[in-house]
């Protein structure tokens, strides 16, 4: 059961990811990206990360991607035109990318094998995350709140009309 679930949603994620890269209109890419995030949320649930799955859907897919869509529509970005490519990127990038992916896969297979089944990890509840967040990781938590504040101010300042 878990395997089937994994395969379905992994396939959805991969196809959507390919779509993100391949589509010429940014709106289509954005929608595909939302699809990727959604299927990843399911995979998080499989891995016992309940809180993270919820956060992924609410924050990532629900807020960040919506922001993306707003900006795309604001800028009225159209389809990408076919123009000259960057030789360096293509010449060097393709083999580098292939090698990169192969290396990662190679190193992954050197990991010790273990299995994943739903319910195998129960420590991903909101309670557990909250406890760790407010005890061990308190300082990074406070720092990120400052970071968000800075981001808000930065975004407002940058996007003003006077510039």
């Amino acid at each position, binding site marked *: 059961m878990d395997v089937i679930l994994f395969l379905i949603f992994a396939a959805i994620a*991969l196809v959507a990811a390919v779509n993100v890269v391949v589509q010429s209109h940014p709106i289509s890419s954005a929608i595909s990206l939302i699809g990727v995030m959604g299927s990843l949320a399911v995979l998080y649930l499989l*891995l016992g990360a309940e*809180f993270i799955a919820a956060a992924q859907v609410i924050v990532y897919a629900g807020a960040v991607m919506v922001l993306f869509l707003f900006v*795309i529509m604001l800028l009225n970005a159209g389809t990408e035109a076919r123009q000259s490519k960057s030789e360096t990127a293509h010449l060097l990038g393709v083999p580098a990318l292939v090698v990169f992916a192969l290396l990662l*896969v190679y190193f992954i297979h050197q990991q010790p094998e273990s*299995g994943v089944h739903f319910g195998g990890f129960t420590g991903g509840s909101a309670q557990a*995350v909250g406890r760790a967040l407010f005890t061990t990781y308190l300082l990074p938590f406070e720092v990120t709140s400052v*970071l968000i504040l800075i981001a808000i101010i930065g975004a407002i300042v940058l*996007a003003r009309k006077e510039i």
Partner: protein
Amino acid sequence: MSQVPLSWFLVLSALLFALGVAGFLFRRNIITVFMSIELMLNAVNLSFVTFAYQHKDVSGHLFVFFVMVVAAAEAAVGLAIILTVFKNRGTLNIDDISSMKN
């Protein structure tokens, strides 16, 4: 066979990451490039959660939490910058924004 091998999750994460890199290298629209970055971040989140499962440690989830926060902040500021660049240069083509002479 009701158990999914852990390595499959990691391979998926690697493939998603590679796709994100491909998008970053080969697309010309800035916003699409930005979305490829988000794709990469998501791939990394998946691998974090996988390792949290493997070590039965919630710290991996905490990392994902922080990555999400930072990604959100980055998206906000980055999009604001893209807006400004669009206002100044009038184009979203990544090759045309550069003002360096060759």
